[in-house]
């Protein structure tokens, strides 16, 4: 892949990942949020694929296909089923309102760029310059977990954190050794399955997927 095309496609895909993260804070409808997550999964796989093609690394290409399958298809489908079962799937009253949380997301992006200066300085390539985008996605996911009330939104926030870390791992180190990558992906998948099971139990016990209802244990 020649230079400028490689650089601009990589930048584009990383940009898509960050925009999808912002969209999860922007939209109130949970099904739209899950779709944004699916697009983000595909973009993440595309980043790994581009890096694998560039470095002629067959292992990385296999990992890219796995990532696309699990984060682009399997996990959004699992979440989509939970969203479909709950008719009130809208984040009607987040703790921080939408415009303020969007401005917060912009501030977190600045923070990410500031905090990752040493990493960017260590890797002078195109891929290295895009590492702050992964950190920004991570921070936005963390923020989303804190300010959203619905259980599904917390799962979405967790997946954003994980996608951001995966992006950083791919860009900075062209993926960690295969064993660890497989273990990490499997763990994320299992975590989502567990959360989905818990959400189903919560639905049957509490009748609603609102985390505000979970207030019985406190000091």
């Amino acid at each position, binding site marked *: 892949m020649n230079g*400028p095309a490689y650089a601009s496609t990589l930048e584009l895909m990383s940009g898509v990942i960050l925009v999808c993260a912002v969209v999860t804070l*922007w939209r109130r409808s949970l099904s739209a949020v899950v779709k944004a997550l699916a697009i983000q999964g595909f973009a993440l796989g595309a980043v790994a694929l581009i890096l694998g093609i560039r470095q002629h690394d067959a292992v990385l290409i296999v990992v890219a296909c796995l990532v696309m399958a699990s984060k682009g298809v399997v996990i959004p489908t699992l979440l989509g089923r939970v969203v479909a079962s709950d008719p009130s799937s809208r984040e009607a009253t987040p703790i921080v309102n939408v415009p303020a949380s969007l*401005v917060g997301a*912009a501030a977190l992006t600045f923070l990410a*760029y500031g905090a990752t200066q040493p990493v960017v300085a260590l890797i002078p390539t195109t891929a290295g310059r895009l590492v702050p985008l992964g950190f920004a996605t991570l921070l936005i996911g963390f923020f989303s977990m804190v300010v959203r009330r619905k259980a599904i939104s917390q799962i979405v926030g967790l997946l954003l954190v994980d996608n951001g870390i995966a992006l950083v791992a791919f860009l900075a180190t062209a993926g960690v050794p295969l064993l660890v990558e497989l273990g990490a992906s499997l763990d994320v998948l299992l975590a989502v399955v567990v959360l989905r099971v818990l959400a189903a139990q919560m639905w049957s016990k509490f009748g609603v997927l609102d985390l505000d209802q979970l207030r019985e244990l406190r000091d």
Partner: protein
Amino acid sequence: MTGFQNVVAAGLVAGAQIVTVSVGGLLLVGVMRKVRSHLEGRVGPPIHQPLLDVRKLFTKQRMHPEQASWVFGAGPVVLVATAVVVAAISPLATTRPPLGRSADFFAIVFVLLLGSVSLALGALDTGTPFGGMGSSRAMTIGALAEPALLVAILAMSIPAHTSNLPVLVRMGLAHPEMIASPARILALGSFVVIILAESGRLPIDNPSTHLELTMIHEAMLLEYAGPDLGLVTLGESMRLTLLLGLLVNLLVPWGVADRPGAVSIVIGLGALAGKVALAGIAIATFEVFTAKLRLFRVPELLAGGFVLAVLGAVTALVVR
């Protein structure tokens, strides 16, 4: 070419762009209405209906409310004047428009803003409640959209190291991969949201509503009649065409004339017309499937546009 010939050529180019934008703008509005009607299962008015409407309006009697001052009459005039100026100096048909060195993106935005502010003042001047309501709503939306627009322009200017609009279009023609950069894409995404806000299209404002309480833009025009209304209609359609023209020339600059010559300028105008028509059809189709947002939800949409622009600017600043 001598200086005099240069001036004549520049004047011709400016005139051509102005005429295209004004006539084409009205035709664009007609096309959009036609597309909407077809998608809604109606036949709809003919495409040149807005032209006929404006011509009819200019033949009618001028009427002013009793308590209005000169501001009321000046509103439409300033609106059209600013649109004409921007049409003359923007790189719509050619990358070397007349007075191109003054065509700074920030300056163009401010001139267009001058037009919309004057219209709002004119509506406020009528002293009627609907005029005031429309003005305040329009200005609220403007106050949210303008910062986003400025940051989006910043995001587009940083990689090119200039905010001069013809230079931006020329660089887009010369280096196509610059258009696919995330900074440019994010900024243009934000630009689309802002165009919808500034020109009063769905989901922010319904241009064909007849219920006063849901009006934002139409409420400002309730008191205008005759030639004033004709001027306003013309000015509004020119603004929409200008904004769309700038968007398409920044996104897909092919077809814009790079060399001087009558043929290439005609091709440029044709390409502009085609691209803007496509953009208008896309907006009209989108409008059929969208519902109008409640007024207090509009800030959310515009905040999203603002954040997209900020992300574009940050990406442009760091990823070089």
